[in-house]
């Protein structure tokens, strides 16, 4: 039933798109029809496949994974001291607020036109939601649960390991879902800058290349691929969360 709804809405959207392109007799370079985009996608299926599953996909997954690990560790450090939070949290926020297009050129100077640069950008973009939500999780512990641990003289480390970390897992999941979408965006934006179609073919690279060639149909096909990648990554995080969280979630 819900699948039917999804298909119906998507079909309706495609129809409108096709109708507009056909009725106004728009040139292909401006608005190609869905069929033309589909054909362009098929024609370029090899490069698109490589971009989705190798370059961009790999950068997103590796970047997200790095953010999850690094962000959780940072959050654990932050949870230990208020002073530390006051001193360092502004810089974490800075990561989020400074536009990535402004940092990217600098990163290219330091790290070159490499996959590594794409990875770094991806981490920068996807780190904040994780640090933020996990820190919140580690610090918003039920007062009675905290008292229970204090009553039995549990040390800092034991409290962190047996009370705070398990409580924060739900927050990590929320943060990771937000970061999953951001990681894909981060990777593609980084590829706009790093992109060099001869040795590095991410989705971002393909998009800038096809834009220059006015291959609008292929560009739109790449756009759909990036949407698919974002959904897939979100889905992976969701599935992992459901599996791990089964014990946590109230039935």
């Amino acid at each position, binding site marked *: 039933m819900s699948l039917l709804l999804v298909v119906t809405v998507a079909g309706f959207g495609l129809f409108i798109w096709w109708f507009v392109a056909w009725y106004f007799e728009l040139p292909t370079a401006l608005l190609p029809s869905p069929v033309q985009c589909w054909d362009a996608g098929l024609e370029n299926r090899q490069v698109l496949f490589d971009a989705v599953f190798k370059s961009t996909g790999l950068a997103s997954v590796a970047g997200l994974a790095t953010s999850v690990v690094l962000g959780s560790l940072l959050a654990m450090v932050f949870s230990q001291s208020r002073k530390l939070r006051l001193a360092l949290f502004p810089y974490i926020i800075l990561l989020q607020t400074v536009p990535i297009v402004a940092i990217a050129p600098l990163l290219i100077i330091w790290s070159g036109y490499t996959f590594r640069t794409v990875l770094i950008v991806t981490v920068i973009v996807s780190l904040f939601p994780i640090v933020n939500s996990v820190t919140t999780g580690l610090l918003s512990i*039920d007062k009675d649960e905290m008292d*229970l*641990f204090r009553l*039995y*003289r*549990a*040390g800092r480390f034991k409290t962190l390991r047996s*009370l705070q970390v398990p409580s924060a897992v739900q927050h990590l999941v929320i943060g990771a879902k937000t970061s999953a979408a951001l990681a894909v965006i981060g990777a593609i934006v980084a590829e706009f800058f790093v992109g060099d179609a001869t040795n590095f073919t991410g989705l971002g690279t393909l998009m800038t290349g096809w834009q220059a060639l006015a291959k609008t149909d292929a560009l739109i096909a790449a756009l759909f691929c990036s949407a698919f990648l974002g959904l897939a990554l979100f889905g992976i995080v969701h599935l992992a969360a459901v599996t791990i969280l089964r*014990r946590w979630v*109230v039935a």
Partner: protein
Amino acid sequence: MSLEIPEGEILSLVGPSGCGKTTLLRVLANLQQPTAGEVVLNPAIRGDLGQIAFVFQQPTLLPWRTALQNVVLPLELLRQSNPLGDSSGGSSGGSSGTNAKTRRECEEIAVEMMRQVGLGDALQRYPRQLSGGMKMRVSIARALVTQPKVLLLDEPFAALDEILRDQLGDLLLERWEQQRFTAVMVTHNISESVLLSHRIASIQKGQIKELIENPLPWPRSGNVRGAPGFGDLYRRVSLSLHDDPKQG
């Protein structure tokens, strides 16, 4: 306020919300510092060996741990904070329950305690799979698993219905017969305070207004409710709570 609680006594604190009952409990548990005055504990009682236990108003079970793992928790925490497992402060009592135990021993003790509260067959269930009454039983088992000398209860049954409250009251009496802890219980429920205590302190504005001896005979169980004297005592506590505060 000044209050002396003899060993092995169950004392009920009754009084309106916000009169400082919970604060008193938290001070007794050393979870909060008194703004003035002091708490003198029997020197044989050591919080670091789990001899003070607390039952919260909510069961406060960790949802990612099974019932059994929740009951093991105090032993586990104490085992880590006393890695050398130095033996308890020389006093009698024998069963101070927390000296250098292996993981397996802790688990056995916890299983036994779960049986004592009637949950021997719910060991591996998670809190969300337990009813409200069962959760509170687990909470009581967790408090008693270290064989505490002092048990502090903060409106432990307030969230439960009348029938469960009676059952858990019986459980508490039964455990007291076995373990003879000293208990301080905050409650809003007068019949609970009459049923479960040696003395009842009615508290108003942070002061003990009246300290009422409870003459009902021991051992007790729910049937004390029908005993002569129950009604009188109930009325007395009730009156003590309801007349106008006289400031002197």
